């Protein structure tokens, strides 16, 4: 009875714990819109190393990561690199309020995914989720959350694929 009980738990836990992060697969293409209605396509970034970041204004690690994304863009944008962020708030006013607290100008585009359709394409499980996509459009790295040592990891991955 005890063995049966443990077997049941294991057979449930394994599917729950092991999930696909799509590393090594082509990044699903999409068309999104900014808060002002401009069309933004992922395919516009082909040929560049791209950081694709999913975030929301109420998410604390997202707030900490945003200045770092600006820093990355300013550092590498002259070298076939870009940043594209997908905002998942339900109202565009929340983006405006969030950005009003950022002292620097935002140099990259922000997709306003009000209906949150795009996270499912990328199996997003937590926020922020930052995907590094290489010049051929393949997902090469995923950084989930944002902690102190993530800056160096993300920077190292970007430089690896910029040099390829």
């Amino acid at each position, binding site marked *: 009875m*005890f*063995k049966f009980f*443990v*077997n049941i738990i*294991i057979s449930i*836990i*394994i599917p*729950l*714990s*092991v*999930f696909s992060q799509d590393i090594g697969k082509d990044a699903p293409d999409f068309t999104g819109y900014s808060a002002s209605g401009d069309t933004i396509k992922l395919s516009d970034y082909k040929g560049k190393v791209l950081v694709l970041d999913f975030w929301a204004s109420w998410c*604390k*690690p997202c707030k900490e990561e945003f200045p770092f994304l600006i820093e990355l863009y300013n550092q590498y944008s002259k070298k076939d690199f870009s940043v594209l962020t997908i905002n998942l708030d339900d109202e565009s006013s929340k983006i405006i309020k969030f950005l009003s607290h950022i002292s620097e100008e935002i140099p990259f585009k922000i997709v306003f995914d009000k209906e949150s359709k795009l996270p499912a394409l990328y199996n997003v*499980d*937590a926020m922020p989720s930052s995907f590094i996509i290489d010049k051929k459009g393949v997902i090469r790295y*995923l950084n*989930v*959350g944002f*902690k*102190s*040592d*993530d800056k160096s990891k993300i920077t190292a991955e970007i430089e690896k694929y910029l040099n390829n």
Partner: protein
Amino acid sequence: MVHKEAVAAVGKKLLFLLLISMPAISYSQEELNNEIQVNFNSYFDNYHLTVFYPSINISKTLDANTSLNASYLVDAISSASMKMTFKVDGITSATPNKQGGADNTPDELRHQVGFGITRNISATSISVNGMYSIEHDYSSKTFASNLSIPFAKKNTIVQLGFTRNWDKVFPQNRFWTKDRNTTVLNLGLTQILSKSIITQLDFSFTNMDGYMLDGYQVVRIITGPLLQILEPVEPDKRIRRAAGIRTNFGISKSSTIQIGYRYYWDTWDINSHTIEGTYKTHLSDNLNLTLELRQYFQTKAYFFKPEYLVPETFMGVDSKLNSGYTTDFSIGINLKGDKSFNFPLLNSDKVTFMASLGVYHRHTDSPDWVIRLQDLYAILINFGFKFSI
């Protein structure tokens, strides 16, 4: 033999499970903070008990997944009830105070230090804490550990806790030292029910053994002209269980209501019901208000009597063991600092100010053993600062 093989096989399977699940779950679960919290708490009641309780807690991250914390507090207790005991208890007057303070004024100062470490391993969070508390008639060593495991994109979190206390009791008016040991097991389940409702179940099991009395309490038995003053006697074992549920409802964009219920029962026949309601609301981006109301009902221990006419096997006089009810209300605020505030300390968004005022009323079905009142009224005044570093 068969059982050991089964356990070994299970152990291997669980280890395999841990190894294969760890690479797939790459994010941490607990948010680790760098902060210092300083609190000043006070308690005053009509039983002449006054407590001042300043404390400092520091939390510092070592790396992205590890955090250390340290705490120190002082309990300064002044109790007139103990003074009354010293006057009437014939045993005391000849007993020198070896631990400091005067024989006639048993004011107490308790020092407590604690250290802990929290580590995130994949999605799991483990914390281990140790604490040492000392005053001139009591010492306590505590070891506590907690494991927190999320499932289903953190919609479900299972928590397991273990605490062990090793206490020594050596009252100023006694010649002995006695031990009290406590083991606590906790199981908790936090479950998100919807985008605005989250619930938590909690079950705790406590095993206590040793000396569980207050060494200053006495039992007075009056038989005609004869007064006997005896030490209380309680069972030296107690098993305590509690099961609780509480749920947070996000009733609007800025307000939350929490409703909770707990049932408690133990081997001394004390059963209790606790009902709590909490209302929290953001009055502004920086100011938060909390209102709490708690109602508690308790039965008495099987050996507790309001009065003893003859010595009995077990005799207890502690009002905690008596039947009765309590009502507890508090109001609190949380104010997050801002650069625009023209007020020292609060002109930084790294500082939060907290304050609360509470009123506590306990009614017991018979008078307290020394104060001779059935109704205890207490006021609790707390304030503190939290600094992000």
